[in-house]
Structure formats: structure tokens, C-alpha cells
């Protein structure tokens, strides 16, 4: 009897720990946990000062009546970011044609502020068709970078070819500065829905 009781206790405790560690078996990876947390906890993201491609200084996320889509980039990114830039352009066009026109701001935020100066941001913006108003490119202050990446749950690692790899996604921030959804770069339908919820 005692061995059975001990084994059952282990199974109960072990299952509880695994349940806790995986958010109820819903998230086995850091990325899925981050996306789930945005939906369920909608954490507030602190406002960080950024400098935009047009030379403006503002706080991100700004506190106005617009929702913000934040994607992370570095401007001399050869492949993935080019595709991501194209997705952002499609998202902008999709939003402009829909009911959320004029209520959403897109920000491509550099995690390489040392190399991404005004010139690089402007060039990247023009290359992808960012107008600096609806969609802008920006960089944070270098000292804020670790806290900023941590607040959004972004991990940046070197790719052994002079560039970086990171968990790229569309981060949806509500007008009151809360991270309300994180979606795949190509999930434009999901992004539009999430923006609709964030603006409700």
C-alpha cells in the first residue's frame, strides 16, 4: 500500500509541476509562453524614448488613442527582415483599406541602435515604403535595449554571419500601453483582429 501511495503522490506532484511549467500544457516553448501571456495577462510595457527615421523623439508606446504594432528589426538584415518588411507593408495596406484606418501606428524598432543611425533608418524606411507617419522606423537608446527587449520578450542572438537572429513577431500594443497580442509576421488577419480588440 505504501509504495502505491508514494507513487501516486509523486505523480500528483509531478503533474502539478509540469502543469504549472507549461501553462496547463499549452506552452512548451518560450515563444508560445510569451504569446499566451500577452493574450491572458496583457502586461503593461514601459514607455521607452525612441528616435524615429524622421528625427523625431517620442515615447514608445505613445499614449494616444491609437494602437501600435511593433516589430523588431536591424536594418542591414539580409533575408528575414526583408520578408518582414514586406509583411509590414501588406499589413499597412490592409489596415488602410479596412475599418481600422487611421487608428493604428506601425513601428519597426531596431535592436541594433549602435549601427542603425538616422541614415540607415531612413534608407530602410524608404526601401520598404515606410512613410514615417503611419509606419515609421525607430531606434531606442542603447542603455534601454536590455530592458526593452525584456519587456517585449524578445531574444536576440548572433547568427555567426555578422548578423542576428531573433524571435520575430508582430507585437500588438493597445492605446493604454498594454501588450495584448503577439502574432507571426505573416498572420495579418490575426493582427487585424487583435488590433480591433485592442481598440475596442
Amino acid at each position: 500500500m505504501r509504495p502505491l501511495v508514494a507513487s501516486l503522490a509523486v505523480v500528483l506532484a509531478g503533474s502539478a509541476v509540469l502543469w504549472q511549467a507549461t501553462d496547463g500544457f499549452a506552452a512548451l516553448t518560450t515563444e508560445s509562453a510569451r504569446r499566451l501571456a500577452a493574450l491572458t495577462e496583457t502586461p503593461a510595457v514601459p514607455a521607452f524614448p525612441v528616435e524615429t527615421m524622421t528625427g523625431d523623439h517620442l515615447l514608445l508606446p505613445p499614449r494616444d488613442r491609437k494602437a501600435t504594432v511593433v516589430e523588431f528589426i536591424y536594418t542591414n538584415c539580409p533575408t528575414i527582415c526583408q520578408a518582414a518588411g514586406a509583411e509590414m507593408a501588406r499589413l499597412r495596406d490592409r489596415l488602410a483599406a479596412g475599418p481600422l484606418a487611421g487608428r493604428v501606428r506601425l513601428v519597426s524598432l531596431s535592436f541594433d541602435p549602435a549601427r542603425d543611425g538616422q541614415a540607415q533608418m531612413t534608407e530602410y524606411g524608404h526601401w520598404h515604403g515606410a512613410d514615417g507617419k503611419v509606419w515609421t522606423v525607430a531606434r531606442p537608446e542603447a542603455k534601454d535595449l536590455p530592458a526593452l527587449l525584456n519587456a517585449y520578450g524578445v531574444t536576440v542572438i548572433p547568427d555567426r554571419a555578422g548578423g542576428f537572429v531573433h524571435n520575430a513577431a508582430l507585437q500588438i500594443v493597445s492605446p493604454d500601453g498594454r501588450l495584448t497580442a503577439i502574432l507571426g509576421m505573416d498572420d495579418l488577419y490575426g493582427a487585424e483582429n487583435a488590433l480591433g480588440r485592442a481598440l475596442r
Partner: protein
Amino acid sequence: MSARLAWATGLIAVAALFRGPIEASPLTHVLMQLPILALAGALIAPYLRFGQGDWNRGGWACLLAAGFGIAFWMLPRSIDATLADMRWEIAKFLALPFLVGLPLAVGYARAHPLTRAVIKAQTVSMLAVMAFLYTHAPMRLCNAYLAEDQYRLGIGFLALAFAAAAAWIAPLLFPTRQQVSGRRAGIGGIRGTVGDSKEEIPCV
């Protein structure tokens, strides 16, 4: 006796001192550091007189605990967390020896030969599943590691699956002299001396 303790301490020291280069690749992080830490726990098992009571009859409670421990540390997010948060790193250095290696050794020592056989079969198949997962996942499973390194980890799991299968099949194909003489003498194998079992079972 003290040699085991020295080995265990040495293994943990190596895992801690070289954690930078070891954790730079998921292959060495998962398939070298974690087993080293578990092995350290297994080595100190005889000192602790742990798991000798009736509650651990057949080794079930300890084997189950080790199973949950392994499942926990096989989660990609656990591995990610150890790289992002020092508290997780410390937890890993404590949990692998004491919640995986130690209970696995203590549980296995008391396990019925059939239980052991099931564990071995399960180990080979799980290693193969992990190999498939890490070589075929369409996305990165750890935010801290590159896709190409994830693939290498998958190949590592595959190699380990083959190695484990070979190591456990080898005695059947190439029996030791002791096993052969046992057979000649008409003994079906080692009797009743393994684990808690009081029955006479031919040891396969």
C-alpha cells in the same frame, strides 16, 4: 566510497566552470551538461541511504520522480529560462543531480528486470522521438539557439538513440564468459538477485 564523492564533485565543477562554452550550443547543453549533472547525482546515491524504505518498493516512486524531472528539463522553455535567468540556472544545477540522477539510480537499483527492460525500450524510443522533433521542427524551439544548432541537437539525439540501442542489444549478441558458463551449467541466468524481486527470473 570517497572516490564516488570526488567524481560527483568534479563533474558538477566541470559543468559549472565550463558552462559558458557548454551552454553555447544546445547539443552540449542538453546532451552533455544535463547528463553530467544527473550522473553526479547518481554517484552520490549510495551515501544518502535514500529510497531504501518500503515506500520505494520496486523503485516506482523514485523512477516516476526521475521521469517527471526529465520531462521538465526536456521542455525547450526550461532550457531557454536557464540561459535568461540565473535562478533557473541554479535550479538546474540542483534539480538534475537530486531530482533526476539520484532518484533514477535509486529507483533503477530496486526495479524489477521487466521494469528495467521497459525503461530501456522507452529510453530508446523517446530519444528517437526527440531526434525527429529537433531535426524536423519547422520553427526554432529555443529562442536562445539557432535553427542549425537545433538540427545538430536532433542529430545528437539520433546518435544517442542508436548508441543506447546498440549498448543494450550487444550483450545478447556477444554474451560475456560469465553468462555463457551460466547457460552451460543449466542456470537460466542470474536468479533472484536483481532489484527487489524475490522470484526467479532469467536475466535477459
